[in-house]
């Protein structure tokens, strides 16, 4: 179908497209006459390119990976001064390209170092650290004589290509434009790879990301490193095009302006942030051209006011506002698409080639055993030496009133939290000490009470995120699309489409998950949990928020998962008829303890279960005991 052939067609078009763009970028600026492109305009255009690259770098961090940085221009500065030091005749005297490469490496390295504490810090704390980094760069590091060249500034010599030095501003513009196109392409590759998808998942919810097998720590650090490396490129361009840069070229206000630009453009939108960056660079001169020189400086005021307006009115930024508009028009024209069925046809998938095979087990042997698990939160014993066992090819229900500790038990099994005591074995392997993403790799998957999906991404992208472990290729292959990434991407994309067809979500393939109804999101989530053919599927209240009819369909779906696909299921459920209907075995928890287990219908008639569920009227005798 079209969905399958589409990527192939775009690939055929894309390769020449970028080549043509690169040739044009390299050739056009120097050949255009001075009438079209004066030297001062060329310099401005170079600055716009550098700013656009810096905006892309910050967008990688804030827009994709959700890590705030208020000090991004410090990394740009690092790039500029690195190029200066490496190419300066007084210092290292290396060729310009070596300077550029060094900027990338040093920018990435310093961002990595800043990112290290960031692993432990969230949101606002990270903002404070990065603001301090901006100040340290501006007022300390870049003012060190050997780095920033003192009050005279750092002079970057003209770059050479062959023996011919490039001296004109139009020549610098050609370099800047070529680099912008390359960075743009790298960013495109990033978002289409497992790397970009992992960033998106980390941004959406770290616990959900880990449940898809994503090593959250590693990808946060990668986001910092790649973003710093790209910022280094922007710095290298600024150093080269300006010729001389001082510490104040990279002041605190620049870092703030970059944040402003990225938010106005729309976090996560490549063309949004690039156009906002170009707009912000060209705005001062345009204003002067229209209103006269008295207006200079007002551009910052305008940008800052725009940011506050954007955040108050259109949190998605400029790009988000346009998308919203387009979406509305499409809805008005075509009307609402028909709803996908709530009774999906689950596709039988084999284990992906990229993942280790699951050890063969026979029916009746334990897939999961949890022994003596205890979790304490402050003064509350949330789980109190609870044990359970899930046999291969069965559906095991886990029920209990609110606050009984079911979800905490779930989290202890998946590794989202470390129990104080207890042992978890998955397929005979002791996983007690393993983080979530390693347990996922062994053949465990789960769904969440509040839908564990990256809600800002499409159905298709979510199915790709869920196959993170099925496409084990490296960072370089991801950024260049050379090497193993092509093979693995083809495999995971085909599976994603297969699942979408099976679920009956063809029309919703590219719809943002957040726009689907709750019941539809639940089905996509189950699809994600099944796409890597895990042995054990853990479902946390799948029927929550469903209508009774949809819950009946869900029962049939669960049985299909067991009988047709041969999956093993651990199910937390509040819907008593549903859990009695589908479970082979039932565990009941109350106040952190497993109070009963066995044949479902028999278990729920036991007095202790009844008391747990319906409560007791207070009586003085009992209270005294």
């Amino acid at each position: 179908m079209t969905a399958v052939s589409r990527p192939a067609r775009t690939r055929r078009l894309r390769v020449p497209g970028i080549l043509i763009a690169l040739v044009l970028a390299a050739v056009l600026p120097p050949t255009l006459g001075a009438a079209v492109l004066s030297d001062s305009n060329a310099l401005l255009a170079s600055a716009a390119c550098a700013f656009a690259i810096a905006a892309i770098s910050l967008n990688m961090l804030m827009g994709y990976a959700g890590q705030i940085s208020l000090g991004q221009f410090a990394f740009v500065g690092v790039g500029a001064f690195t190029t200066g030091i490496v190419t300066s005749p007084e210092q290292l005297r290396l060729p310009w390209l070596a300077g550029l490469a060094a900027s990338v490496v040093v920018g990435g390295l310093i961002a990595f170092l800043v990112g290290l504490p960031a692993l432990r810090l969230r949101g606002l704390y990270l903002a404070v650290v990065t603001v301090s980094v901006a100040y340290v760069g501006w007022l300390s590091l870049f003012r060190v004589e050997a780095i920033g060249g003192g009050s005279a500034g750092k002079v970057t010599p003209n770059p050479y290509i062959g023996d011919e030095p490039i001296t004109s501003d139009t020549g610098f513009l050609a370099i800047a434009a070529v680099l912008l196109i390359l960075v743009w392409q790298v960013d495109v590759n990033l978002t289409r790879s497992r790397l970009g998808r992992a960033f998106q998942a980390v941004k959406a919810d770290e616990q959900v990301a880990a449940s898809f097998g994503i090593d959250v720590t590693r990808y946060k650090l990668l986001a910092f490193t790649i973003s710093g490396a790209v910022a280094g490129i922007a710095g290298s361009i600024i150093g080269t095009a300006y010729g001389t840069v001082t510490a104040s070229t990279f002041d605190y206000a620049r870092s703030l302006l970059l944040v402003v630009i990225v938010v106005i453009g729309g976090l996560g939108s490549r063309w949004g942030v690039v156009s906002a960056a170009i707009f912000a660079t060209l705005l001062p001169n345009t204003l002067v051209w229209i209103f006269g020189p008295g207006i200079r400086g007002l551009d910052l005021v305008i940008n800052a006011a725009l940011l506050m307006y954007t955040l108050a009115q259109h949190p998605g930024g400029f790009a988000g506002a346009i998308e919203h508009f387009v979406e509305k028009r499409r809805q008005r024209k075509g009307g609402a698409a028909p709803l996908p069925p709530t009774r999906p046809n689950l596709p039988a998938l084999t284990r992906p080639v990229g993942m280790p095979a699951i050890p063969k087990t026979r029916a009746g042997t334990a897939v999961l055993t949890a022994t003596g698990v205890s979790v304490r939160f402050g003064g509350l014993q949330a789980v109190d030496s609870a044990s359970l066992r899930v046999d291969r090819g069965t559906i095991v229900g886990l029920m209990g009133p609110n606050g009984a500790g079911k979800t905490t038990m779930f989290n202890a099994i998946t590794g989202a939290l470390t129990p104080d005591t207890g042992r978890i074995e998955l397929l005979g392997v002791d996983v007690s000490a393993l983080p979530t993403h390693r347990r996922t790799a062994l053949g465990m998957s789960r769904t969440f009470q509040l839908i564990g999906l990256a809600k800002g991404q499409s159905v298709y992208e979510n199915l790709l995120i869920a196959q993170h472990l099925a496409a084990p290729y490296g960072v370089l292959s991801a950024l260049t699309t050379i090497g193993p990434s092509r093979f693995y991407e083809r495999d995971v994309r085909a599976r994603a489409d297969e699942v979408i067809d099976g679920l009956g979500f063809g029309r919703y393939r590219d719809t943002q998950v957040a726009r689907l109804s709750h019941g539809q999101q639940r089905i996509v989530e189950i699809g994600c949990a099944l796409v890597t053919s895990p042995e054990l599927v853990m479902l946390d209240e799948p029927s929550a928020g469903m209508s009774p009819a949809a819950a009946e369909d869900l029962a049939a779906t669960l049985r299909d998962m067991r009988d047709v696909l041969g999956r093993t299921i651990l199910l937390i459920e509040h819907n008593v008829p549903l859990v009695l209907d589908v479970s082979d075995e039932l565990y009941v928890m109350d106040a952190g303890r497993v109070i009963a287990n066995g044949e479902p219908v028999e278990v729920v008639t036991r007095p202790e279960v009844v008391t747990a569920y319906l409560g007791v009227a207070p009586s003085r005798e009992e209270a005294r005991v």
Partner: protein
Amino acid sequence: MTTPLLEVRDITAGFGATTVLHGVSFDVPQGSIAGIFGLNGAGKSVTMKVLGGSVPARSGSVHFRGQDITKLSPEKRVAMGMGHVPQGRQVFPGLTVEENLRLGAYTLRRKDKKRYGPALNGVFDRFPILAQRRGQLAGTMSGGQQASLAVGRALINEPDLILVDEPSAGLSPVATLELDEVLQAVAHTGVTMVLVEQNIAFGLSLVDTAHLMQTGTVVHSGPVGELDDQTLATHLGIGRVLQAAAGSALAARQAPPVKKGSRARRPA
């Protein structure tokens, strides 16, 4: 016929893509105690939040004392005579008992400062423990004492209606007993009350009218006296197997352990 104190008509509400309430309707007459029961996820707490104003209704209306309050902010509703005992008994842990009560009387003190003194004494009379511990930080008190404080904080503002959201959650049996006494005492003041309770047997012992909820709608409304085990089991969605158990919960209601005094104050 007089209009009920609280009229809830066809409320829908939810979060994001999720719709939790699909058309909830019920009335609460002056002086009665209404209970909302259901299993987890039935929409009890969201219903309470819609009544209190902290979750907006997507459609439908809420009338309080004959006025449409659907779009009013929570604080305006409190000023109109609505009181809250929030879920988990949320007292302000860093404030003392007396400060909690003073804050509870916020709108009363805005209207007439002179009424605060007697109101405070009234609460202290009803809950002597609060008078003893007036200078203690609320966060350092036991669960049962916090429950008394939460109820006292709601009563001190002299409300016409009190919304009580899952008061027994997380309480020990002893504390539940204390709570029961507190709520029984409040019931006898003639104030109108809406109670949400997870512990169904406990809740049934307190209320006059039961509204049973399942998947976001009220599936049964009626006086507690007319409930039978089958109605309870069916409408709570707990399945036939738990039917017998529902019967025993009802039996507990029919022989209330600590209920004394008549409810003659209620309009016949």
